[in-house]
């Protein structure tokens, strides 16, 4: 019998990169276990907001981190239930290296009846030297209309 994490890695993992906006950015699944997920975002010139200084836009990083911690919350939930981001804070501790592939690792550290509490980091090669930290919450069954990962 396969665990939920294994099911996710096999079926939902590749699916992450097929979500239209994730696909546009080129986001890809790396690995998952019971409460954490690792995703990757290879560099594209379209991610920059200031090409003169190599400054990244927030959008691609937040898309990566939101997807990553959202998936971690689903793993901690142990079921494909509709969920939606309630809030997400991103702290940029330093700029990514030029043209870096950004790796995200997100975990759900607490699950309640309705809320998943998540945190994660993004790095450009060395997890001990991150470029960004995130903290946030997800609401489960926030709305019957919420699509989630169904």
């Amino acid at each position, binding site marked *: 019998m396969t665990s939920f994490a294994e099911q996710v890695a096999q079926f939902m993992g590749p699916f992450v990169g097929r979500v239209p906006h994730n696909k546009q950015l080129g986001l890809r699944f790396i690995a998952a276990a019971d409460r954490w997920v690792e995703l990757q975002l290879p560099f594209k010139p379209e991610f920059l907001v200031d090409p003169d200084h190599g*400054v990244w*836009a927030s959008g691609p990083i937040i898309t990566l981190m939101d997807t990553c911690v959202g998936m971690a919350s689903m793993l901690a939930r142990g079921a494909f239930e509709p969920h939606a981001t309630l809030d997400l804070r*991103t702290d940029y501790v330093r700029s990514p290296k030029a043209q870096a592939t950004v790796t995200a690792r997100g975990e759900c550290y607490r699950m309640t009846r309705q809320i998943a509490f998540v945190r994660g980091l993004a790095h450009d090669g060395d997890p001990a030297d991150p470029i960004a930290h995130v903290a946030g919450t997800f609401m489960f069954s926030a709305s019957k209309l*919420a699509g989630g990962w169904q």
Partner: protein
Amino acid sequence: MTNPALATLLRDASGRLDLLPYAAMLDLSFERVDGELQLVMPFADTLIGSPGRLHGGAISGLLELAGLLTVIAAQPEGEALPRVRPVTVTVDFMREGAPVETRAAASITKLGRRVVNVHASAWQGDRAKPITAAHINFVLDWPER
């Protein structure tokens, strides 16, 4: 951001934001509405994050750009522009993003020389019902004199 062409562009009544590669990817344009700088993100299938909903990351990206461009537009005319970069971005998701046009605008809470505190919100049709809002702290790096 030190591109003087951008500061000049933002003084127009409307225009496209293709100078910024990420804004070009999202097909963004801007309009001055009663003096306020509003960003317009047309719906595209590539913005979808889950069935029938916009990806929160794309809406967050729109909010950051609304903040960034409002900060650029607030700098004194004719002076060198600083590099503007976000240090903290906190996003609240209030309503799901429908597959329609999204608008965003930002207001500056405090315009400092080194730090600018910004509030940005995004809406679809009804300004009084924002779908997403962000609190962003930008740091300005001034070019050497």
